[in-house]
Every structure is written in structure tokens, then in C-alpha cells.
């Protein structure tokens, strides 16, 4: 069973607020990822990390930022949320030997 957790599951906030989506995994995986998924739509990679102090932009441009200070923790931050940021954000980590991605349950963000 995968051990990767995201909080909050649901968040409704006003425009201009700063938000941080938390993602933690207890599997010791070095590689972690953030995907953005609009309802009924495909997943788009927005950030990834290969380990502590490593962060890279993904294929879809995003105004969010990430940090990786500890192996188990990969938070995503929006400095000033806008309605266009309304989406579901999925965090994942990857096992080194199987290539399998383990996903959290997602954080559904609504910006009013």
C-alpha cells in the first residue's frame, strides 16, 4: 500500500491569497512529482524533483513554486491565487526499481 499523503483534500479561497499544498511520502523515494488535472482532463506535469534541493519545471508552465528540503516532503506554493488556478493537484513519488508512480489522493483547489 502506497504511503503518500496530501493536505488539504479540498480548499476554497479568495483571489490573491497565498496557499501551500502539502505532500509527504514515507517510502523514502527520491523522485517526486506534481501534476495538475482539470476535471475530466489529462494530467500535466508541472514540477518534479530528483532529490533534496533538486526541483525542475515540468511540461506545463505553472505560476506555482515547489521546494524539497527533506526527502519526504514536497510542498507546492501559490503566492497569489487566481481563479485560473482552480484545478486538482496530484502529488506522486516514484519507486527507483519499478518505475511505478505512487499517487496521493489529490488536493482540489477552488479560487473564487
Amino acid at each position, binding site marked *: 500500500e502506497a504511503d503518500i499523503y*496530501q493536505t488539504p483534500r479540498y480548499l476554497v479561497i479568495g483571489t490573491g491569497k497565498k496557499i501551500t499544498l502539502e505532500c509527504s511520502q514515507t517510502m523514502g523515494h527520491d523522485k517526486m512529482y506534481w501534476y495538475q488535472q482539470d476535471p*475530466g482532463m489529462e494530467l500535466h506535469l508541472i514540477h518534479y524533483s530528483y532529490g533534496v534541493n533538486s526541483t525542475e519545471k515540468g511540461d506545463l508552465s505553472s505560476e506555482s513554486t515547489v521546494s524539497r528540503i527533506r526527502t519526504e516532503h514536497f510542498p507546492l506554493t501559490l503566492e497569489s491565487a487566481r481563479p485560473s488556478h482552480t484545478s486538482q493537484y496530484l502529488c506522486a513519488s516514484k519507486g527507483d526499481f*519499478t518505475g511505478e*508512480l505512487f*499517487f496521493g489522493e*489529490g488536493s482540489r483547489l477552488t479560487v473564487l
Partner: protein
Amino acid sequence: AQSVTQLDSQVPVFEEAPVELRCNYSSSVSVYLFWYVQYPNQGLQLLLKYLSGSTLVKGINGFEAEFNKSQTSFHLRKPSVHISDTAEYFCAIGTSYDKVIFGPGTSLSVIP
């Protein structure tokens, strides 16, 4: 560059009938192949994966898929579906255990 195509965006099927969800990919290098399932308001869960060896891969919940290198396909099948199989299904490829590229998804609706 790599890409994944899922030809059917929506597949309705009656309960206990067989189903096939199609997936084709494009890549200039060898790939690893995955099928993930996403139930409403949840993250993605691995159904099955092909890394090497036998081209017929069996997964959880009675699903199986066959890798066809000449046709660059990895179609997902189940001989008899249940109501609980209603979900979004994503085909994905990975080339170096780092990035994983997802298809647009197929929404499977099982009709009682």
C-alpha cells in the same frame, strides 16, 4: 518526443460484458508501459505495468493488457466488467524511470 493516445474518450458498457480500452504510443526509444485507474475524487492507482518479458500482463481487479511492439499498442481488457469498474483509466509510458507521460484518459461507464 514521446506521446500517448487513447482513442476513446468515453466507453459505455453493460455490466458483465467484456471491455477493451485502447492505447497507442509513440516513442523513438524503448518504453515501459502502465495503466492507471482513477476513481472519483481520488488519486491514481496502478492497475498493471509492462517492463519486460511476457507481453501479456495481468493486473489487479481482473484486468490484463497486451504489449504489441509492432503496433505500438498496449490495450487494456477485462472479460466481464462490474459496476465498481466505473472510473477514469489512463495509459502511460516511461522511458528512463524518470518522467512518465500520460494519455488523455478514457472514461469507462458500466451500465447496470
